[in-house]
């Protein structure tokens, strides 16, 4: 079960990280537009399309990865004081009652939406450049599928925790500086389940 869990975690992380690199495309693309528009006085027609498509793909595909890192923000004012078993039971119930149906709806509606868009090779309406937007829309159902897999992984994690009374270790990954520093400080006494926070 743990191997299956880590398989899904790595899948989400791999996809999320692959798309994360789009931030460089976004940075250089936008900077290029700034240069040609303000220095050369010759703006491109595709800059806005390029930027939102990259940004959209970047964050959509990072959704499951973020979930695998417990990075989606929680109001953990009460939650953090519960024992792991209680946390896991509550999470388990809400993953099954709330998360899985919502993500199935997300996947289904994305599927219809993307299908129509792919069929007539939809291009962006924001500029005359005719930048194809259907690949971005096609990512919506893919996102739904990834979230569904990751949701199953989280359900497994909850079950493992209810059985053993403590949260299973997550795969190692880069952490926010504060999380890393705090962990170094209290090495040993850490609680891996605490929501990582993003600190933004």
């Amino acid at each position, binding site marked *: 079960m743990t191997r299956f869990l880590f398989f899904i975690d790595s899948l989400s992380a791999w996809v*999320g*990280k692959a798309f*994360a690199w789009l*931030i*460089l495309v*976004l*940075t250089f*693309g*936008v*900077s290029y*537009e*700034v240069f040609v528009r*303000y220095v050369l006085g010759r703006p491109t027609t595709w800059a806005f399309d390029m*930027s*939102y498509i990259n*940004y*959209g793909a970047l*964050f*959509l595909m*990072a*959704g499951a*990865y*973020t979930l695998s*890192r417990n*990075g*989606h*923000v*929680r*109001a*953990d*004012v*009460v*939650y953090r004081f*519960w024992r792991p078993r209680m946390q896991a039971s*509550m999470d388990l119930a*809400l993953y099954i*009652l*709330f*998360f899985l*149906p*919502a*993500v199935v*709806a*997300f996947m*289904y*509606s*994305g599927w219809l*939406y993307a299908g129509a868009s792919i069929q007539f090779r939809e291009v962006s309406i924001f500029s005359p450049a005719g930048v194809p937007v259907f690949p971005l829309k096609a990512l*919506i159902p893919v996102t739904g599928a990834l979230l569904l897999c990751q949701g199953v992984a989280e359900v497994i994690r909850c079950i493992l925790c209810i059985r053993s009374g403590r949260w299973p270790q997550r795969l190692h990954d*880069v952490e*926010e500086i*504060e*999380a890393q*520093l*705090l962990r170094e*400080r209290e090495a040993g006494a850490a609680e891996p389940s605490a929501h990582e*926070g*993003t*600190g*933004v």
Partner: protein
Amino acid sequence: MTDPQVGMFMLGLFIFIIMLGFPIAFTLIAMGVGFGFYAYYTPGQPILDNRIFSLLVQKTFEVTSNDVLTAVPLFLFMGYVVERANILDRLFRSLQIAAKNVPGSLAVATLLTCAMFATATGIVGAVVTLMGLLAFPAMLRAGYDVKLSAGVVCAGGCLGILIPPSILLIVYAATAGISAVKLYAAAMIPGFLLASLYVVYVIGRAILNPALCPKLPAEETNVPLAEVVRTLLTSFFPLAALILSVLGAILLGLATPSEAAGAGALASLVLAAAYGALNFTMLRDSVFLTARATAMVCYLFIGSWTFASVFALLGGQGVIERFFLGLNLSPTMFLIFTQAIIFLLGWPLEWTEIIIIFVPIFLPLLDNFGIDPIFFGILVALNTQTAFNTPPVAMAAFYLKGVAPPHVTLADIFKGALPFVFMVFLSMALVYIFPGLALWLPDYLYTPR
């Protein structure tokens, strides 16, 4: 139950569920889908024909194609890169020797370093922990009062979400559908006002009670002027230039926030390279963290916009409007009432949830009271400064506690941060009494004449 009653039930249930600690973005999406299905349902209709499905995906696409939110990953990336650019030590050291003759010089230098570094990174947690490891022990070694030192680090570290280019303001602009540029212009003076109030408070305390901030030993302050200038030139000015060029480009109307953010991100890479900190590991870490933080913010938007549409469709928004209008509040009372709610929400919640989920409930009401959404936004931005330092979820205080020496208690940190929370209230009152503090600059810059 009538539809508006269902709507209020939806809101109540939502607040109950998020208090159970489930990820908020997915709670919003799930409840939007569930209640939306009910709202759109007509008897005899096939289950999969329900219009909620097209609403959900439309809201998703609206988030992905929002021109203001495009700036979010770029500013985050710039922040993560600056955070890893090996600049903080130099910056603190240079400001410390530059401020050596000011009463409470270490505390003032800490505040200025925090304000500046936080402005460039926009990331609260990292600033507080890094300064908690760098400046906090330095102040304690110099014999500074524990509470005052703790308050300075906590309060200074949060300024980055207020002083432009802050992500909070981008998120508010996207939520309220107003110009991010004007909001940035409006936040400039209040942001510097608050930072100056902090500095004045620290200097005042240091003058009234010199025992709080003992003078540094002579060998630490005895630095030749040339050395002071050199350290300022190599640490303070490059970062200041980065911030000012990003801000200037936005404020002078030369570039949109996302364009300035893109150029700023590129400039931060150059800066990191200049400090010899640019390598594959730091780049990779910044890239991955950017993706996760962006996803966290943007999924909240998908959830919130879906939830809000369904809430309005059921008539819940109307109930809230009638309730507020029925109270016969004056605009002042309304402002105090809403800001008090936002202050209280800051106890259990972080600013992302407050701005993305709860502020939209108040925004449609502003018109009725003749309140400018930009003005309201500045008050909210000031107000959320307190959210980091008020228990039980005082992120800044907990971060500092996590890296502080064991003898520093959470109670010390809270007590130390309290006067700075009052400074926030004072700045809110000043902005309220003199709205020009917020509205003059955008007016001056963007009113054609």
